[in-house]
């Protein structure tokens, strides 16, 4: 039945099928076929034998990953960083969006909005250069200021505890503009008459923001949080790699699943264990998205992602 339908449909819409074919093939080859490589997580990989010729070794790779403690450490780091970054960057974006919308001076509004979005356009490599030129021991901006006032320079690269703060700051620095654009769009969607009516009724500006602006951006905020929660086990590799680099002293404090995987992929011939880490990440991520989405759907259909 279905086959007949497809054949008929294909004849009828040959051109449409042809138009979608390139993207279909690209996604099939570049995204779906590599998924077969996930079997590596259960194999003792040998390059000469390839992915499918290598021997199976059950769950030995997973056992090794978690027995060594690395699995737990990178999972914990990934989740904590994502939570920290989620809260700080969304909060800051909401505040900035509300403030920008209240600004009456058009030039000030335009210039600040442009400047705040600028970091989104900069590659993480350049952000890495920023971090280095601000925090490095010999010539960094901060240490330059400290020594010029007679203080002792701080060795940031030997102080793991400060890096969550630095990473969080640069994450917000890069994304606040982008996220605030989204919230500004939501605020602009408010009917102007509601605000006018509130003003006539004697509501002050704080009351207006609290009971009109904030409720109106709630759906957007929830969507943004859901999207981020769905990625809670995915570290932003480009950010971590450029900000921290291959700095062994900082691994305990800054290693996330993605940086661990990359480093192992490059340096460690034992790809099975690394594959186990990504397998675990992909599967768990998928499970989290499905669970969160169905819970949200259950509570309020409108907020579900799909």
């Amino acid at each position, binding site marked *: 039945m279905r086959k007949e339908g497809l054949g008929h449909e294909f004849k009828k819409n040959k051109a449409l099928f042809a138009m979608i074919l390139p993207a279909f093939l690209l996604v099939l080859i570049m*995204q779906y076929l590599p998924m077969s490589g996930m079997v590596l997580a259960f194999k003792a990989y040998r390059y000469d034998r390839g992915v499918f010729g290598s021997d199976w070794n059950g769950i030995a790779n997973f056992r090794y990953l978690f027995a060594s403690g690395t699995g737990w450490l990178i999972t914990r780091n990934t989740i904590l960083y994502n939570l920290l970054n989620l809260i700080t960057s969304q909060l800051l974006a909401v505040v900035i969006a509300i*403030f920008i919308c209240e600004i009456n001076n058009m030039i000030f509004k335009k210039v600040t909005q442009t400047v705040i*979005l600028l970091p989104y356009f900069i590659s993480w490599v350049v952000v890495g250069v920023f971090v280095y*030129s601000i925090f490095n021991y010999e010539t960094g901006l901060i240490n330059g200021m400290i020594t010029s006032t007679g203080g002792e320079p701080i060795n940031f690269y030997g102080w793991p505890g400060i890096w969550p703060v630095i990473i969080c700051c640069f994450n917000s620095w890069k994304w606040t503009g982008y996220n605030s654009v989204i919230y500004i769009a939501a605020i602009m969607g408010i009917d102007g008459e509601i605000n006018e009516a509130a003003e006539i009724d004697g509501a002050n500006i704080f009351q207006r923001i609290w009971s009109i602006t904030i409720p109106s951006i709630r759906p957007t905020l929830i969507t943004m949080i859901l999207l981020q929660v769905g990625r809670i086990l995915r570290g932003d590799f480009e950010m971590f790699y450029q900000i921290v680099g291959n700095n062994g002293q900082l691994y305990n404090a800054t290693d996330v699943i993605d940086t661990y995987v990359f480093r192992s992929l490059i340096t460690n011939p034992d790809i099975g264990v690394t594959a186990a880490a990504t397998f675990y990440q992909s599967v768990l991520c998928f499970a989290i998205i499905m669970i969160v989405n169905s819970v949200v759907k259950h509570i309020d259909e409108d907020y579900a992602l799909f």
Partner: protein
Amino acid sequence: MPARKIKLSTSSKVFYVICYTVVALMAIICLIPFILLISGSFTSEQFIRFHGYSLLPGEFSTEAYKIIFKTPQRIIRAYGVSIMITVIGTFLGLLLTSMTAYVISRKDFKYRNWFSFFFYFTTLFNGGMVSTYIFYIQYLNLKDSYLALILPMMFNVFYLLIMRTFVSSIPHALIEAAKIDGAGEWRIFFTIILPLLKSGLATIGLFLALGYWNDWYNAMLYLNTETKYPLQYMLYAIQQQTQALASIASQAGIQVQNLPSSSLKLAMAVVATGPIVIVYPFVQKYFVAGITIGSVKG
């Protein structure tokens, strides 16, 4: 709103003071690294070694730029690679995205939902870095190939959803009318749909181009040959390797220890970032439009 200027209550005054201060502070924070970068690149090496980087050049010098432009081959080549990758990738990406968005928007196309799901699923689940890397290298032979820079970023579901929004604003009656006039599907797409998608193409094209221009990750994973490096990855390599700096020194005919490496690193970053910062104000509105549309769940 001039009406508000008449009389501001105390609470409003307090609010506006906080509001303007916070926004201005945020803008300054966003700018500081750029100022540091430019200032550092124009500071003499001597000064940086003694005092560190600073927000104003303590001792003005164009030494770093002189060295870069003395032997610009390396940068010109990296620029060339980046431009090539960006142009090819953006062009093909636009073609694929617009065709696909058009097809899945066609209500009379029976399998549109099946295809939509096929694409959307990749945002929920993927093979992860290891299987992808091994697959690309062993089975697709992408090691050290420019294709490794172009193909992975060519098609993106997020852009597809944005483009679909643009496509769905075109009335279906237009397609019907063209069909009655005897136009084939390809003709309808290229002569009627594409011209109406101009702002959508501009928006997605800019997103694609920015992605390609700023990409260093694929270059790091897949490229071995230094002459193939795109701009951002070359910049990264220079930040990392004193070796790369040494080769610049020898090309410029000076000794390594005389090389102004601290300012040179920043000058390189300026040269690599300059075009984006200069172009950005002119294309900002397209990005804002794209981000706004993308945030409205498709």
